[in-house]
């Protein structure tokens, strides 16, 4: 029991050491490689992580908002408040559902791929090969992936938000016949720029934590196919939980900042 606890604490410490090395790796520039080469890696990672994720993120955003519209319409219609459907759908999508579900989808799609790729590189000694050739594997392999995730997760959240807003509109207005003008008016009254900015900014944190956990799991992967499989599962579960916890922390901090910036609206 004590042994397991010590190993958990050791693992946690090693993860934060890895985070420190990853975040400070660009400072060790100059020693390693050419910036053109690193840019090439960054572009290829941005393509893999960003561009290829756009379709699944768009589908996620659209269907979540459409389902929300279907589930909420009856309750509001019974009270004669169906025109406020836009408020509920859009604030939910922009503040929570868009960012969190995009983050979780990316944890599965991108996080799993990062862990599998780096884990396979670890067990086939490719990471050791980077080291013996006088390069820093964290700078060469982790930094471009971390940067791509941090930069592109917010962009992907924008896609999820747009599709969510459109999906909600289509079901509410076209299917349930809610007045279009009222739908948008109530939406505009409820959703503030602050909500949109905070929702998108969550992507920075989700992208960072997902990339760091996934890369760390890949780097510490055990030998064999089962080792890579286990690392992928652990990476997804850990990223999933970390995104939910991070979402809660960002929501708390954002609320505190909002209360300071807009004290008159604080109770709403």
């Amino acid at each position, binding site marked *: 029991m004590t042994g397991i606890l010590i190993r958990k604490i050791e693992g946690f410490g090693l993860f934060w050491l890895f985070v420190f090395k990853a975040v400070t790796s660009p400072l060790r520039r100059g020693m390693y*490689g050419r910036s053109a*080469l690193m840019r090439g890696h960054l572009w290829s990672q941005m393509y893999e992580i960003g561009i290829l994720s756009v379709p699944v993120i768009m589908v996620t955003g659209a269907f979540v908002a459409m389902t929300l519209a279907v589930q909420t319409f009856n309750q509001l219609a019974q009270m004669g408040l169906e025109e406020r459907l836009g408020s509920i759908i859009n604030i939910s999508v922009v503040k929570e559902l868009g960012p969190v579900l995009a983050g979780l989808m990316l944890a599965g799609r991108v996080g799993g791929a990062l862990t599998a*790729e780096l884990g396979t*590189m670890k067990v*086939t000694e*490719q990471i*050791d090969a980077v080291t*013996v*050739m*006088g390069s820093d594997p964290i700078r060469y392999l982790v930094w471009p992936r971390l940067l791509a995730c941090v930069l592109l997760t917010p962009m992907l959240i924008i896609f999820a938000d747009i599709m969510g807003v459109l999906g909600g509109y289509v079901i509410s207005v076209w299917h349930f016949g809610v007045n279009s003008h009222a739908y948008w008016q109530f939406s505009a009254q409820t959703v503030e720029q602050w909500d949109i900015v905070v929702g998108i900014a969550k992507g920075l944190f989700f992208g960072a934590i997902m990339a760091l956990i996934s890369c760390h799991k890949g780097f510490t992967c055990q030998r064999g196919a089962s080792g890579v499989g286990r690392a992928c599962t652990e990476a997804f579960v850990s990223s999933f939980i970390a995104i939910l916890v991070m979402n809660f922390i960002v929501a708390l901090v954002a609320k505190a900042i909002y209360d300071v910036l807009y004290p008159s609206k604080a109770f709403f």
Partner: protein
Amino acid sequence: MSNNPKNLFELQGVSCSFGSLKVIDNLDFGIERGKTTVIIGPSGCGKTVLLKHLIMLIRPSRGKVFFDGKRIDQFNERKLIEMRRRCGFLFQAGALFDSQTVAYNVSFPLYQHTNYSQEQIDDIVREKLEMVGLPGLEDRFPSQLSGGQQKRIALARAISLNPEVVLYDEPTTGLDPIRADTINELILKLQKQLKITSIAVTHDMQSAYKIADRIVMFNHGRVIVDGTADEIRNSADPKVQQFIQGRSEELGNK
């Protein structure tokens, strides 16, 4: 300082353990410059671990490791880069970057450590691929090559910076006898032409006899015999004879 200036590498009292398993046990060992040293021994005796100690992929649990007179086991990663730049390492399974082309693999150290133009890098890649007998494969991916070809590409990558020392982990394992001999010839050529110091870990006694200036047999984390190819052949130690003749324990007892 290292005790013997003739030695490029020197290990003093080196031990290495993984948990309760002692892989290297208080080893004192030197590797002479410009010579080919072959380390033999049964599977799991710690040969590869020893090789990885020389390039600090594994740090010793105890003892000192010297390279060119400098104690490297206390170097940080930044200081080790300069030392590693002078070395090439051939991994047992090649360890090629499988998502990159052959040209990228061979040129990786050049991109990392030189300011050569793209044309110069392309020329070096071409030259190294010709040296290992695989010209024209620049645009292939490792998955499109056979195991033997991958190993030779890995060797081209290991020598792309013209290192002073090359460490080979099982250089001929998995190759047919003709390809294995090509690798042996290449190791000999590098040693003769460029005065490269070579350290090879192998099970292949034919290869060991062919390339070695010195053969060291390693077992249970210790050196049990150290000498020239002839001295090993004529060793009176039954364990050495059993190994070099490839006799299993049961057969040896009959």
